[in-house]
């Protein structure tokens, strides 16, 4: 069999065509949504206060950007999001690995994880504030606490799911326990872990914004809450649009990182589905 026939996967042209088609389809529906918003807002069926037109909201975002306000608030929110997110990833992978490999860790943390998961952990914010004060530390702690759960579960599943042939093969070639963990288990579990990480980032963003809304101050959440108290509906909607854009960008960023890291995985070579 020739080398070309041995390789699998669609060729570049096919990928480009599908990529452009789905991009166009997605943007078209967003554009349609914005147009519908504009028309409905100006139609007089609701007041400009209840639903400011998209153009007015966009104008507000623009002026905030030019003034610089947008960037400081955005930067603050993202700072809290990312610090909490990275802590959650490190703690999550560490704890998940321990739980997957040692009986004691699993016994001790399993009830905590299984009870913690369906609990509205945000309710503990007042307790966290009590312990850690009213500044960033509390916000970041809350973000970490929420975002760590999906990472833990994903890591446990990923590591437990590593086929024993891979482990035996590595031992056959002389790998010791520590080498086994870093050289075999974690790379093999990476697809699952990455999925958990991809869930954790949007969660981190949500919690960061929520803590800002609850505790006030700067950051997109705090500014939105302020706007709502001052009946500044354009400010509120501006915040929503900003969050939507940021959320979308973060999801895309992680998807791109996933494609890069998991180049070797089967999914990279499967024909893309719509």
């Amino acid at each position, binding site marked *: 069999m020739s*080398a070309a026939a*041995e390789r699998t996967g669609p060729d570049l042209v096919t990928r480009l065509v599908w990529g452009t088609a789905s991009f166009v389809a997605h943007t078209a529906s967003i554009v349609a949504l914005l147009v519908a918003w504009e028309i409905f807002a100006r139609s007089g069926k609701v007041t400009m206060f209840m639903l400011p037109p998209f153009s007015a909201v966009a104008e507000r975002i623009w002026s905030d950007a030019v003034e610089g306000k947008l960037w400081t608030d955005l930067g603050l929110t993202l700072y809290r999001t990312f610090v909490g997110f990275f802590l959650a990833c490190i703690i999550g992978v560490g704890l998940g690995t321990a739980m997957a490999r040692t009986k004691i860790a699993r016994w001790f943390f399993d009830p905590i994880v299984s009870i913690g998961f369906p609990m509205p952990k945000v309710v503990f914010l007042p307790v966290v504030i009590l312990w850690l004060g009213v500044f960033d530390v509390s916000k970041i702690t809350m973000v970490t606490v929420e975002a760590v759960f999906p990472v833990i579960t994903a890591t446990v599943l990923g590591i437990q799911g590593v086929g024993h042939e*891979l482990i*035996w*093969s590595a031992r056959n*070639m002389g790998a010791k326990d520590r080498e086994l963990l870093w*050289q075999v288990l974690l*790379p093999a579990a990476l697809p699952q872990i990455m999925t958990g990480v991809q869930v954790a980032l949007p969660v981190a963003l949500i919690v960061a914004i929520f803590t800002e809304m609850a505790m006030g101050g700067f950051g997109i959440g705090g500014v939105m809450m302020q706007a709502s108290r001052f009946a500044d509906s354009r400010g509120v909607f501006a915040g929503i649009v900003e969050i939507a854009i940021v959320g979308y960008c973060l999801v895309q960023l992680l998807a791109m990182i996933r494609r890069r890291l998991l180049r070797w*995985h089967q999914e990279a070579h499967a024909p893309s589905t719509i």
Partner: protein
Amino acid sequence: MTSNAQIVVEQVGHRYRPPTGREVVALDDVSLSVQSREFLALLGPSGCGKSTLLYMIGGFLPTVTGRILVDGKPVAGPGPDRGVVFQHFALFPWKTVKANVLYGLERTQLARDEREKRAQSFIDMVGLTGFEDSYPSQLSGGMKQRAAIARTLAFDPDILLMDEPFGALDAQTRSLMQAELLNIWRRTPKTVIFVTHDVQEAVFLAERVAVMSARPGRIKALIDTRFDKTDPHVFKSKAFVDKVDEIWGLVRDEAIKAQAGRGQ
């Protein structure tokens, strides 16, 4: 003569308890000795414990009763002196072919460029030149198994333990791989223990065939299968066909017993 044998299996037994159900006796009083550089096939119906025996020699499973000696010393765990080739290749999917082969060489004392050269030579030997930088997901089944063999051969184990390595391949690839394996073995002679349930494969590849009984596994018979295997029509030669018949007769009863056991 057991005292000169490289691998000695003495009255070995193995049992385990599955999560639900009663204890299973996988092996019962198995004794076997393998000479250095001998090609031995372990043949038997599904579930007879042949893979279990192989993995015990490999050091992955503990011996419950009896003992296994390799080069006079009891088996204490897995190690690079006994290289394993698995049915489903066990290649690291996140490493390229070359990186996979190099992994086994990392713990040898060779210098960096020597390792690279050695890896490349084995990749060439199994016919994968040009695919060093491919990932396993980009390779066909036959190519993956060739990569796995290259990886195991590269760290030069004295003993090769192969667990139905061609079982996951289609028939045509399988016969090509069988011929290639014999070639490789002739060039770099090693002790090989080859697990299979395919009688023809066992007779073609091995010098001796150990027929195992259905569970609990025991060695039922040891048959000499030395022929002139360079003859391209060996599969049709009378000697070959007779041998296959003889062994199939022994295996058939065990296969039926294994089926019956399953039905209960």
